[in-house]
């Protein structure tokens, strides 16, 4: 095929790229590794709980200290 013909063919390959992107966006694909995802989610929630829980505990301790000893402020 001539170089001009191949250039036209390259547009067909571009169309394939676009079509595959659209198809992948629309398809309802099952997750490959739902267990791993669930575990990641649990770890994330644990992490978030630890972070926010720790923050709440630290804040409440600070408030209690300040209320009990107003002179320290």
């Amino acid at each position: 095929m001539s170089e001009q013909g191949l250039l036209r063919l390259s547009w067909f390959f571009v169309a394939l790229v676009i079509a595959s992107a659209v198809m992948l966006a629309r398809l309802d694909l099952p997750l490959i590794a739902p267990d791993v995802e669930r575990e990641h989610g649990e770890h994330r929630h644990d992490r978030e709980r630890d972070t926010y829980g720790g923050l709440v505990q630290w804040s409440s301790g600070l408030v209690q200290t300040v209320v009990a000893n107003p002179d320290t402020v």
Partner: protein
Amino acid sequence: MEVKEDRILVWDPFVRVFHWSLVTAFVVAWASGDEWASLHERAGYFIGTLVVLRVVWGLIGTRHARFTDFVVAPRRVGEYLNALRTGGGERYLGHNPAGAWMIVSLLVMLTLTIGSGLLMADGEQWEELHEALAWATLLLVLLHVAGVVVSGLLHHENLVRAMVTGRKVRRQLDV
């Protein structure tokens, strides 16, 4: 010596769309890795599709897209890098020897990364391998970007723009 210049089409539309689609999909896959599995997997499938299409295009595509145009003996990579180090190094209109092997390496590493991702359907034991391969691929990407910057500076050309427009200046002394 007088150097004649003219701007010609080097990268065909598919090569350019492939390149920037891969960049986008890789960033999406990386960013969504731990946080958004469905998006991560879609990005992985898309990268897999891109790799397959690029391999096919590497066999039948336009002149500078074909593997036979740019994949050279590995010793040429060493010679090219040595020449660069001493301030020389011929300018290539298509891929230079180092860039050529980087493309091959990236295609292989992306295939292995996608393969290990698919194997995660069998269990979590593949997760560490998948992550290690993804990091190795990221390292190659960074080396590729560094190579583009160095080559662009040495030859006084904007290779990023060339990958957008597809056009490069042809010089009399080009390989």
